[in-house]
């Protein structure tokens, strides 16, 4: 949508830049720009510098393909972490979700997305080959496939599982379950059926 001429050129330019971001439409972009115009200069500078720092200083770790300032990343170079386990996730942000649990002390591998041929994303577009090579070289005892329980996450896990199985280590998948604090009688039939399949001995 073209920005009306009546607006000063730098304002129009910034609205245009914001509108390119995901989930931000022209209206929201304009609101953000007018908000920034009313803030002190140092705040705007801090924002601009933070954006540039992300581009200049953050790279992909060449081992796990997570985001890092130095290579290998903190998680890959931390000797206290268990190198015999690799948790495979779709995106770097999934690592932060798992780390917040404090329940996992192994290493990670970021695929960079999920397989979806209808969207033009095949294994070659992801870091699948890199995972197989890494597993071949490091010979970990267990690979945990932690992709989302949706159609693309399932297909990606099945595919990666097929490639890894011949290498001989344990390949596991996150269990499906009921939300903690939820009621069994309020869970949908599919979730409940999956939770039953994944039941454990007490």
């Amino acid at each position: 949508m073209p920005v009306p001429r009546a607006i000063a050129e730098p304002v129009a330019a910034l609205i245009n830049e914001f509108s390119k971001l995901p989930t931000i439409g022209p209206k929201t972009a304009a609101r953000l720009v007018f908000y920034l115009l009313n803030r002190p200069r140092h705040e705007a500078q801090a924002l601009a510098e933070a954006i540039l720092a992300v581009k200049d200083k953050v790279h992909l770790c060449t081992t796990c393909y997570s985001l890092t300032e130095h290579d290998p990343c903190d998680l890959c170079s931390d000797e206290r972490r268990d190198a015999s386990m690799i948790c495979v996730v779709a995106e770097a942000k999934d690592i932060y979700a798992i780390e917040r649990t404090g329940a996992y002390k192994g290493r990670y591998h970021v695929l960079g997305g999920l397989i979806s041929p209808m969207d033009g994303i095949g294994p070659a577009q992801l870091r699948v080959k890199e995972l197989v090579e890494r597993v071949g070289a490091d010979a970990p005892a267990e690979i945990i496939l932690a992709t989302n329980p949706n159609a693309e996450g399932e297909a990606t896990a099945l595919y990666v599982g097929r490639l890894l199985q011949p290498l001989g280590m344990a390949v596991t998948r996150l269990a499906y379950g009921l939300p903690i604090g939820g009621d069994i009688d309020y869970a949908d039939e599919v979730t409940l059926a999956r939770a039953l399949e994944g039941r454990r001995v007490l």
Partner: protein
Amino acid sequence: MRLPHIELTNFRNYRELELEPAAGLNVFLGANAQGKSNLLEAIAMLGTGKSFRTSRESEVIREGASRAVVTGEAHSRMGIVRLGCMVESGPRSAHKRYLVNGKDVRYARFLGRAAVVTFVPADLQMIGGAPSLRRAFLNAALSQEQPPYYHELVRYQRALTQKNAMLRSETADRELLEVYEQTLIEAGTALWLARDEAVQALALHAEQAHRRWSAGTEHLELRYHPNVPAQAPTHDAVVEAFTTHLRAHRDAERVRRTALVGPHRDDLRFLLGGTSLAAYGSQGQQRTAVLALKVAEYHVMRKRTGEAPILLLDDVLSELDAARAAAFLEGIGDVDQGFVTATELDSRFPAARKFEIDAGRLRVQA
């Protein structure tokens, strides 16, 4: 199952409408294009969450409004539940929201809370039309009755789209193709078994109704015609047949660049006295068979859910001659609650409450 209170907001030609239908048959009377079918469409959406008239659902939003809302109170053996279905206009397509007792829920959690059986004139073409019409009938009926069926159907369709995308793009990753085929076999087997069971139940009721109408002279048969024929209707036999069929058609699928094997190519066949109704039946014979199928759908759903579904008849009785219309109503029997549209009052309807509809206004007739 009953809906004693229904409200529409900005739905088609209704700005605000409150409706208090009675138990039994409610008749919407009025000339054409006054909004009778719009009401039926709204009521059906409380059950199926989908319009039976359009796939472009933003059409249901009243001109100038940003969202259409239907809410209703469903009274059943399970208690009272408040249902809501909203269609909001979006930049590209309409956005739908489903509410149960005021809470936003996923479609799968909404579907089937109020069981409905809808009968529209287009259904009368089902036997002579494309197989996709008959699959759509089975999918709609089964999804409403069985939440796991809907889940498997979605799973199947997603995997099918991905497989077709691979076949079109010629990415020869055998391993990945097998991943999608594994899902197709799993989900497809669940669809196969559910359809087979459902068609047997439908066939029984349809045959009974039809036998009464024809005074026992004509024998109606319904047959599930799966694309993958299995030795026996068991999980293992279907999985095996599916696997063998996929292997046998692998080259053909690559050449045709589309998935040729599976329940997305199933059919439902109608036979009268052993011969195909689609090929040799008269229009009248085909119509009577559809009536029998609809009567069967009603009774099967009643049996499965333990209570009578809501019956919705859109202009369908006026399409039928007097004898067939009477036979249909007789086949259904007593309704818990039903809704019928008609241009004039017909003595055949045992109407519990009559509503006159004129340019989007509703008046209860004494």
